[in-house]
Every structure is written in structure tokens, then in C-alpha cells.
């Protein structure tokens, strides 16, 4: 009996997938769902989490041998800047603690909800509903708190939840006026990885051009639409950047990596495989997070109907499709320029952009810039965005406390605000140890 109890408490119940499954199951029971929904929904969430873990690990496994080979050849450590790389890094760093991410996520939502409920006094208006993003941030903040403060899990969960909940409440509120202007009173704000970026560029974008020079009057080459397709864009972007990253290895070095395969086939399959594992990851996110988003939306409508729902950043893109495409292009340009600066300066850390920051930071900032300052502002703001994101991510990577990870977010807030918070956490941790 004792042994069964010990197995349950020390082993079974601490496994991330079980912990998350229990949480989801409890949620369904509290919502008085039908028994079939309780069973199927709980299993779907658990399978979803396993898909995310599997996809993230494989994502790292494709990249790590390349990064190691390049590091051996040149002394430069390469990392991927993509929010899904941050997910992969922090899930590996947390190990069996990953399951506590679920508690951070729910408690942070509760903190955010309380701040908005008392909005008259706290001035917070935005409520973070984006389950697909919130879970990734919950595990990243949990890891940063655990590794920098060096405290036990439970206090770390509490501190992470408060930090994240306060960040959600005020970052979404800061972005709200800009989002309202861009969407013509769309009735929402953004809850993603770059709300502070939307606020920042909302403040400066009008300086760079006239909004009458609207990007929507342009005719862009139709072939660019290929980047709208996530499966294709991940593959193409990885071919370009990881391919370029492998140049110092030469054909001989790549042959060594390829083993029995042809070296060209190896490079070709790297892009394809990144896209495979990204698709696996996204399938997992869809299975685990959709119900969370739905539940949060329900709670928001019931408890704080006047709050601004903070939703996924892609909601901005339809308001200016051309500006979104141009934003993607010039964010890529700024990123590439910064990578050359890193190379020339002899930086020991190099970052390679994934699809997510280019499409989902570059795109929306492009839409904001176009609304405020037209096409010239799109060009300048998004180039600047790429520069800030690249250098900020290098800074964040020096502090991620897990050098063997595949990479870090690469999105504006995680290249600016969160590295500052990480630095503060690190100082506090050093004072007490």
C-alpha cells in the first residue's frame, strides 16, 4: 500500500502529462461537461502535450548536431530565434517540472483577471486569452524564476504566476489604444509575444512617414503569398538560414554530419524535417490549447464582460495585408543586417531566425507602422524591429541558463522586457545565495 502511494506521489503524479491531464479533467468536471467530453477532452490534452514535447525535442535534435559541428569548426554557438525554439528549450530545461507550467498558466490568468476586475483602481483593461501563447510563456517564466532565484518549485510557481499575470494585464493594456486605432475600434487588444512592441512602435511610427502613403495601394508580387503557408514558410526559411549557417562546415563537414546520406540530401531534409516537427508541435498546441482559450473566453464574458479580450497577434494582419507582407520582408532584412554585424564583430553567439518572429512580429508591426506613417514607416520600423529582436535575443540567450537549448523566442517582448526582468531576477538570486 505504502509502495503504491509512493509510486503515485513521487512518480506517476509528477509526470508533466499526468499533471496537465488532471488539471484539464478537473476543469471539465467544474464546467459540468458530459462524461464523454471529460474523458475525450482530457486524453486529447494529454496527447497534445506529448506531441508538443515530442515535436520540440525533435526540433532540437535536428538542429543540435549542426550547431555542435559549426561550434567545433568556428567557435561560434548558433541558436534559433523562434518562440517555438523557446518552448523546446524550456521544456527540456524544466524536465519533470514542466507540468507545473499548467499551474503557472492558470494562476497567472487569475492574477490578470483580478487586476482587470478591479480595473477602476488598477487601470488594467486587457485579459490574456491566448492559450497557445500563454502556455509557452508560463513555462519560460517558470524556468527563468527557478533557475535564477534557485528556489523550490512551489514558491517559484507563485512568483512566476504573479510576474506573468501582471505582465499580461499591463502589456495588453498598453497595446490597447494602438490596436483600437489600427482596427478602427475592433474591440480587442493583443495578447502575444510583442504587445510592448506594438505600444513602442505605435509611439514612434508616425515620425517616419505619412500615413497617406498607404501600403495597400501597392501591388506586391503574388509569389510572396507562399509565406502565408506555414508548412512551406518554415521549410524555406530554415533552408535559407540553417543552410547559410552550415557554409563554414564546407562540403566535407556536411558529409560528416550526413553520415550515409548524400550531403545535399542532408541539407534538403533539414528544412523538410524542421517543418515536419513544427507541424507536430502545432498539432499538439491545437489539441491542448483550444479548449483553454474557449474556457478563458467564457470566463471573461461572464466575470469581466467589459474587459478587452487580448487575442493572438495574427488578428491584426487582415487589417492591412500588404503592410503585413512588407513588415515580414523588412523584419527579415533587419535581422539579416544584424546577423552580419554579429559576424563582423566576432560575437561568440549567433542567432538564426525562425519563421515565427519574422511573420508574427514583422507582420503586425508592419500593420501598425502603415496605419501611423505609411509605407516609409513600415520599412524603417520593421528593419529596426529586426535589429532590436536580433540583438535582444542574443542578450536573452546569454541569460537563458540552459546553453544546450536550441534557442530562444526572438519576439520583441522577449528580446527587451523579459531580459531586463531576467537580469533583475538574477541579481536578486545572487543576493540571497
Amino acid at each position, binding site marked *: 500500500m505504502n509502495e503504491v502511494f509512493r509510486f503515485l506521489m513521487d512518480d506517476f503524479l509528477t509526470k508533466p502529462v499526468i499533471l496537465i491531464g488532471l488539471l484539464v479533467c478537473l476543469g471539465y468536471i467544474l464546467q459540468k461537461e458530459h462524461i464523454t467530453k471529460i474523458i475525450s477532452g482530457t486524453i486529447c490534452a494529454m496527447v497534445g502535450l506529448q506531441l508538443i514535447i515530442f515535436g520540440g525535442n525533435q526540433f532540437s535534435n535536428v538542429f543540435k548536431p549542426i550547431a555542435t559541428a559549426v561550434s567545433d569548426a568556428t567557435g561560434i554557438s548558433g541558436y534559433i530565434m523562434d518562440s517555438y525554439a523557446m518552448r523546446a528549450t524550456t521544456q527540456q530545461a524544466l524536465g519533470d517540472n514542466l507540468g507545473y507550467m499548467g499551474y503557472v498558466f492558470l494562476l497567472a490568468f487569475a492574477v490578470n483577471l483580478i487586476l482587470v476586475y478591479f480595473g477602476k483602481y488598477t487601470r488594467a483593461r486587457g485579459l490574456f486569452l491566448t492559450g497557445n501563447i500563454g502556455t509557452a510563456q508560463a513555462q519560460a517564466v517558470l524556468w527563468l524564476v527557478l533557475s535564477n532565484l534557485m528556489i523550490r518549485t512551489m514558491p517559484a510557481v507563485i512568483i512566476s504566476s504573479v510576474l506573468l499575470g501582471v505582465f499580461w494585464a499591463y502589456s495588453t493594456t498598453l497595446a490597447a489604444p494602438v490596436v483600437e486605432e489600427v482596427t478602427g475600434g475592433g474591440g480587442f487588444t493583443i495578447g502575444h509575444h510583442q504587445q510592448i512592441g506594438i505600444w513602442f512602435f505605435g509611439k514612434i511610427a508616425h515620425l517616419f512617414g505619412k500615413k497617406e502613403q498607404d501600403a495597400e495601394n501597392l501591388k506586391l508580387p503574388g509569389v510572396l503569398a507562399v509565406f502565408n*503557408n*506555414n508548412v512551406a514558410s518554415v521549410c524555406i526559411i530554415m533552408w535559407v538560414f540553417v543552410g547559410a549557417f552550415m557554409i563554414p562546415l564546407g562540403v566535407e563537414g556536411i558529409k560528416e554530419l550526413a553520415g550515409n546520406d548524400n550531403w545535399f540530401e542532408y541539407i534538403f531534409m533539414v528544412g523538410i524535417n524542421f517543418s515536419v516537427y513544427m507541424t507536430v508541435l502545432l498539432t499538439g498546441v491545437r489539441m491542448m490549447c*483550444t479548449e483553454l*482559450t474557449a474556457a478563458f473566453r467564457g470566463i471573461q464574458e461572464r466575470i469581466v464582460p467589459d474587459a478587452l479580450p487580448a*487575442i493572438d497577434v*495574427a*488578428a491584426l494582419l487582415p487589417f*492591412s495585408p500588404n503592410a503585413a507582407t512588407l513588415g515580414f520582408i523588412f523584419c527579415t532584412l533587419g535581422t539579416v543586417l544584424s546577423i552580419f554585424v554579429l559576424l563582423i564583430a566576432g560575437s561568440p553567439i549567433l542567432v538564426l531566425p525562425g519563421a515565427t518572429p519574422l511573420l508574427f512580429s514583422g507582420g503586425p508591426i508592419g500593420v501598425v507602422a502603415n496605419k501611423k506613417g505609411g509605407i516609409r514607416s513600415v520599412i524603417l520600423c520593421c528593419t529596426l524591429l529586426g535589429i532590436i529582436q536580433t540583438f535582444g535575443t542574443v542578450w536573452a540567450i546569454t541569460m537563458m541558463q540552459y546553453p544546450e537549448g536550441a534557442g530562444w523566442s526572438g519576439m520583441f517582448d522577449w528580446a527587451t522586457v523579459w531580459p531586463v526582468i531576467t537580469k533583475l531576477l538574477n541579481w536578486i538570486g545572487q543576493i540571497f545565495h
Partner: protein
Amino acid sequence: MSTPLHVLFVCGYGVGTSAMAAINVQKALKAERISAEVQHTSLGNMGSLKDWADVICIAVNLQQGVRFEPGKHIVTMINILDGPGIAGQIGKIVDEYYPGIRE
């Protein structure tokens, strides 16, 4: 009871905006007395659900370069949080092509 209308929501990664749109529109469709089943996916994975869908709701920025077979009903979304507006567009399609579905 007739078979419910199959509505597919499509966004870039198929995890954020399409999910939120589906949640909002499903509620608004109920108000329109249209029984519907909804799913959401990414543009890259849309092919696997195209046959299932009666109506495809897709953000305007993603429509460029995408070809749909004739006869497929497409609803273009700008504000994905505008559940009633999108449901209204679906309602027009229902009245014209699936008149049995509205209760």
C-alpha cells in the same frame, strides 16, 4: 434533425486566431439558429479538411494565392472577433444553399 453545417476556420498557424474565431462564430451561429460543427486549422494543413468543410472562413490577408474549387463557399474575415458579422455572412450562404439547416 438535419446534418449540421461544417464550418472550417483557417489562420496562419491554426492555433490562435482561427481558434478564437471559431469560438466566437459558433456562439453567434447558435443565435442565428444555425446548427454547425466547427474546426480550425492552419493554411498549410487546410487541404486535409477541405472536403469536410461546407464553408471556409479565412482571414483576408491569407486569401491571396489560394485557389478554392468552384462551389466551395468562402467567407472572408477581417475582424475575427466580430462573431455576429461573420455568422451573418454564413447565414446568407445557409439561406441560399442549405435552407434546411436553419431551425
